[in-house]
């Protein structure tokens, strides 16, 4: 019984982390039809920026609680700098190209960012563990969890609610839906599609960076840390259906629970259980759980 609880809690924690990252990936795909392979690198950038900022803050002898603000600031900073830089500097020259070509463009970007990180931060590991332990821990039956993990869950819920609100309740969100629905029509109706793309990509980048910044205190921040994240996030959004936000949430939950179940009960399948689930879902739902296949008009 305690096992089941542990599996569930671990699964939900892992799912929260996955959802924040996958939400950015699926948002960008849904609006821009770009499956961003560099998403993992942006996650890594978020982690590096967080480790540097929070580290500097703590070394400067400021109040430890302020390190949380530094994590948030790092994520926002990465989003606001890298989002527009990549969208305006590279992606806008590629609109209208094949989806697969765009995957290759972002793959090239991934390669470049991987080395850029090494050039800026070097190859040594960064640690900033203080924010992780600062809040103490909480007892859940026989188990003990750091309160910091709760922040992760709150952040995931917050991201989900904010996205839902932004899309359904704000004018920009409605324009966004119009662009998703029919971009040529939207452009013809005077919607500034370029602006929508810029905002979307920046928001997506920021989500990746938030994922990275929140992770920074829990791991050693190392080169290559985004390499596995990107394929995990792919699995999540492919399971849920590319471009679908509820799909990303459900996909994250499925992947989170499957992985934590594997870790607890069948550790030898941990690494590939996720991809196995992804392959299984695609067998029965070729476009993922939340996206229906479309027939072509001839």
């Amino acid at each position, binding site marked *: 019984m305690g096992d089941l609880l542990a599996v569930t809690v671990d699964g939900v924690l892992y799912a929260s982390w996955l959802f924040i990252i996958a939400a950015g990936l699926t948002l960008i795909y849904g609006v821009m039809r770009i499956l961003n392979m560099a998403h993992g690198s942006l996650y890594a950038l978020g982690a590096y920026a967080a480790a540097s900022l929070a580290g500097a803050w703590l070394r400067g002898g400021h109040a430890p609680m302020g390190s949380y603000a530094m994590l948030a600031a790092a994520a926002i900073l990465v989003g606001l700098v890298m989002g527009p830089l990549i969208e305006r500097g590279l992606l806008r020259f590629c609109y209208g190209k094949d989806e697969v070509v765009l995957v290759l463009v972002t793959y090239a970007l991934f390669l470049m960012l991987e080395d850029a990180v090494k050039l800026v931060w070097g190859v040594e590991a960064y640690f900033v563990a203080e924010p992780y332990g600062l809040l103490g821990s909480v007892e859940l039956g026989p188990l003990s969890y750091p309160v910091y993990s709760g922040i992760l869950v709150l952040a995931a819920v917050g991201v989900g609610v904010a996205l839902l609100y932004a899309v359904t309740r704000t004018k920009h969100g409605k324009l966004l839906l119009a662009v998703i629905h029919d971009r040529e029509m939207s452009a013809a109706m005077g919607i500034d599609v370029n602006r929508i793309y810029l905002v979307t990509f920046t928001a997506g980048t920021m989500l990746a960076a938030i994922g990275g910044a929140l992770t920074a205190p829990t791991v050693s921040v190392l080169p290559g840390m985004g390499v596995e994240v990107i394929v995990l996030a792919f699995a999540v959004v492919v399971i849920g259906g590319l471009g679908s936000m509820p799909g990303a949430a459900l996909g994250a939950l499925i992947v989170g629970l499957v992985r934590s179940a594997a870790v607890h009960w069948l550790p030898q399948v941990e*690494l590939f259980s996720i991809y196995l689930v992804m392959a299984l879902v695609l067998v029965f739902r070729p476009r993922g759980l939340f996206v229906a296949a479309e027939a072509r008009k001839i």
Partner: protein
Amino acid sequence: MSAGAPPRLWPRLGLALLVTLAVVPFLPKWAAFLVTLALAKGLVALGLLLLMRTGLVSFGQGLYYGIGAYAAGMGASALELGDAVPLVLLGATAAGLVALLLGLLLARYRTIFFAMLSLAFSMIFYGLLVKTSALGSTDGFNVAARSTFGLPTTSPVGRFGVYGLGALVVFVGAASLDRYLRSHLGRLAPAIRDNELRVEYMGASVRNVVHLHLVLAAVLAGAGGALTALAVGHVDPETTYWTTSGEFVFVAILSGTGSVAAPFVGALLLELLRSFAYEHAPNTWQLVVGASMLAVILFLPEGLWSVFRRRRRAA
């Protein structure tokens, strides 16, 4: 032969083979090694060329590359096959069989879904390898062939056996693929890329053709993996990781799909660049690769090969 079609390639490929074999005794060991790796990886990219001509980009060719490498390695250790030739055949066959099975599923998918599902399969295999201690887990294990075509690796000629075998496999692979692409069946590749519906409405099964091409590409990748294992003398799970697959995609994009010779030029270029970068700038290697890939996609969408062709046309 119609006037518009390019001339057959195999005579020139044959010449290239003879030249490659002739320079063997004069090459320093490291150069022979580098060229062998380029030939092996070029084979994987050649398979990608076939898939790309069919309109598919696979981010999971590392799966077949890894299967080829591990099959050759296990053939050498478990089956005690001592000669490189049966080991390469074993690698190619094993990869082909796996593609035959996975193709039942993969052949239904297109565009990014195909790319992602192939990636998922390669990652499943990676996960299996990492957790299999009998196969050395993350460390992998050593592979050695005692001979090539019966020539012991200790003999002066046999020393370059894997290199010569690589050149031969490349010749056979490239010449057959070139011939295939000009056949009625092979011509369906660009037709499928352009318009699947029409191919079906002409009475051919798109799924069967895609399945066949998956198997052919896997056989080439498996042979490439086996050759790499024999040249390096070692296999490890890295061969099936998604970044390895990404490197093959890079070679295929860099080379373009214009000619069956292109992937080998691209792979050689990559290996040369890599050995240079490892010496002088190990931390900017991916930066160079990424930037050149971007440049090719944006400015030379047909790949580097199109530059040669354009020049020849102008002449």
